């Protein structure tokens, strides 16, 4: 019978110090040496009592473990589910199934394919705007607008409302630029406004003929029982919460990584067909999501340690992605890496269902940027980072250019 992990006071102190360092914004530009320390022990305990893990094999096991709940009510912190990302089966399964049905195969196999020309046109337009510039901010001018417009297109937001919608999306993203999930009053207001707007789109589709966008699909679906309007609003908000900030950071982190490695940048410029391999390695090397949160429903034994039921559990995916026991030369950015089963999109039943779209966006953005930017150079390295340790990316990424080609 395994004893509960009762750390000695020295270990608790070391745990608190290490985990505080990971949370410290000063370490945001390079948390990876801290993750290396994290992997020295299978489990750490933070000051709040959460159990924190960073090894690949342990995280791989736990991410598929039905004894871990995604419902914040089951963690020590408590809270309630905002969307099906924070729900457990069976409710989670039903909502995800209904959303997926309108997003991808088998029922909607060609949606993403149909979006490809639209995505290319968006990327083209955003880079065209840089043609007379000698310096620009990747984050504000490429990373933010691109995914925002993509989600707008996916939801069927009318063209004339796109700017308004993207402004809301950005405001919500900035509101999460904190070191916790706390939402300010302002963010709350933005949320309500956006929710109201989406409700309007839903009502329009209930009244008039629906289109072929995702919202229309959700409005008309009765296969698992109809979705209530508030459920559809929350799904739409989930796309923004889980699909906007993350893609923004994927693109920003990607540009930063390539600009630091002129050889890799040039390689992608010459061979845009390598974009998928580059993006996969980015998802491992500089993932947008560093940590995911769970609650234990009962005692779980992992790495020789017992995590009691009712505990908060944190899985540091970005640490698992750099685990030398799984990846050779883990701290090398190597797009030719074989067997690159990273945790960039999570895993298990909550694995990112927007992944195919996110991949496409990142591939298009990075191949277009490398192709068209003339002599790009980082103005500041490291750039300033957003505060959030969970959704990690630069707050601004200024790049000097000599021009933009066609």
């Amino acid at each position, binding site marked *: 019978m395994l004893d509960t992990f009762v750390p000695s006071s020295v270990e608790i102190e070391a745990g608190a110090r290490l985990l505080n360092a990971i949370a410290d914004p000063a370490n945001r530009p390079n948390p990876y040496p801290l993750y290396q320390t994290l992997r020295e022990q299978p489990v750490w305990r933070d000051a709040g009592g959460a159990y924190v893990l960073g090894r690949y094999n342990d995280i791989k*096991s736990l991410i*598929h473990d039905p*004894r871990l709940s995604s419902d914040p009510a089951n963690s020590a912190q408590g809270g309630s589910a905002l969307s099906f990302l924070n729900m457990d089966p*069976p409710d989670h*399964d039903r909502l995800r199934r209904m959303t997926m049905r309108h997003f991808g195969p088998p029922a909607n196999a060609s949606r993403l394919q149909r979006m490809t020309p639209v995505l290319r046109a968006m990327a083209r337009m955003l880079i065209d705007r840089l043609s007379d510039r000698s310096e620009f901010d990747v984050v504000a001018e490429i990373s933010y607008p691109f995914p925002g417009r993509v989600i707008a297109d996916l939801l069927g937001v009318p063209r004339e409302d796109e700017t308004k919608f993207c402004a809301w999306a950005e405001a919500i993203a900035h509101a999460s630029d904190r070191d916790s999930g706390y939402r300010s009053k302002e963010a709350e207001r933005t949320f309500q406004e956006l929710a109201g707007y989406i409700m309007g789109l839903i009502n329009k589709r209930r009244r008039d003929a629906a289109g072929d966008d995702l919202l229309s699909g959700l409005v008309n679906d009765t296969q698992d029982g109809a979705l209530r309007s508030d459920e559809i609003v929350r799904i739409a908000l989930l796309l923004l919460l889980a699909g906007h900030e993350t893609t923004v950071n994927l693109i920003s982190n990607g540009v930063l990584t390539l600009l630091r490695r002129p050889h890799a940048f040039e390689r992608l410029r010459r061979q845009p067909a390598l974009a998928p391999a580059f993006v996969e390695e980015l998802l491992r090397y500089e993932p947008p999501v560093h940590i995911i949160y769970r609650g234990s*429903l009962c005692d779980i034994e992992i790495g020789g340690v017992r995590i009691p039921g009712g505990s908060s559990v944190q899985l540091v995916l970005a640490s698992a992605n750099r685990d030398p026991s799984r990846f050779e030369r883990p701290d090398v950015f190597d797009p030719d890496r074989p067997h690159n089963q990273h945790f960039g999109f999570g895993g298990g*039943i909550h694995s990112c269902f927007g992944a195919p779209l996110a991949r496409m966006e990142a591939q298009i953005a990075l191949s277009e940027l490398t192709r068209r930017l003339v002599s790009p150079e980082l103005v500041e390295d490291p750039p300033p980072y957003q505060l959030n340790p969970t959704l990690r990316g630069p707050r601004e990424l200024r790049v000097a250019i000599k021009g933009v080609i066609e």
Partner: protein
Amino acid sequence: MTAPANVVIVGASLAGLRTAEALRDRGYKGQLTLIGAEPHAPYDRPPLSKQVLAGWVAPMQTTLPRLRSVDAVWRLGAAASRLDRVRRRVEMKNGDSVSYDRVVIATGSRSRAWPVPSEQALAGVHGLRTVEDASRLLADLDAGPSRVLVIGGGFTGSEVASACRDRGLPVTMVELNAAPLMPALGRLVGDWVAARQRDAGVDLRCGVAVTRLFADGSGRVAGAELSDGCKVAADLVVVSIGAVRNCDWLADSNLDAGPAGCVCDAGCRALDRSGAPAFDIFVCGEAARFRHPLSGGRLVSLEHWSAATDQAHVVAANLLQPRSATNDDNLPRFWSSQFGISLRASGLPSCADEAMVVQGSLESGRFICLYGRKARMVGAVSINQPKWIAFYEDQIMSGGRFPFGCRVVDPPRSGALARPVFPTIQPSHP
């Protein structure tokens, strides 16, 4: 004992091919011969009862992809007739013989034939094992029979019935046990599958046997008589009553071999009738009969695709490096697609004495059912919930206990754990 320079693999389907590839992967540079009774390059059988009957894939498009080149002599369309262990030769039906330093028995199995030859010979009576069987069955299905009779509600029979319903054909399926899939998965899951089959319009008769097939006077099957006195009119019959291991050619080899397979140890070494391992004879795939760690000492012969591929590596390791002492401790895995159900199974549910649903529910049609024998978890079945099965596979592999007492997401609503029945009727061998 000299290093092997001449390996003969008898059987050129999945097990034989993967063994050849595994040998070359491990650096075997000697001579390699594959002997296959069928005249085809190795092909994939699972699609024959699924995608092929659905029309997605032509029967001849099921050739197995090669993982690598094997640089072997292929003797296809040439069945083995005898194993001469003294002269160390495989004798073939066509009179040829091939000598060996090491021989691998990978001859798989054949469909058990209908016990009455004159009834088996009627037009419209089919088995389903080979690409030729699949082509013939497809032609008869395309002709639009008025009713199909499937004899045997195992995996093959159920999948055939599913394909028939997809074509809108009336189907009667007759199963000896109380539920389809019962010997493999027990009654709890079997009853649930029976309900889905009936929902799909299958005329399912359980607990009865077909006693006689009768003809229409022009040599075509016209129907069957059942053990309960009922008669079923059918102009297409698919006989799917199990598989017989192709070990007849080993009859006088003194190996412990018969219709249930050739007994081997956990390292795939063939055992003779005294129980002694033969240093130069290995068994792989369906032909292998052995005591799996989860079987509680019982001899099992796995018909799974995964068994052939897993055992191929064990054979290659032990054949080339006898001291490597590699054992097959892989977790058996198999799957079935029928009636829109995604069914995944791991471990040995058939060796269990109890089962319980731990996630989801029978009512919702999405669940995980675990199997235990003597308080140990030995198997898991996922119905439409494949993402959870990896976790239970880990539990089985690391000595997980049964019942599984932990609190999990989506627990079954009803507190009572069902204790299903496994059939006492085991398929008998001729």
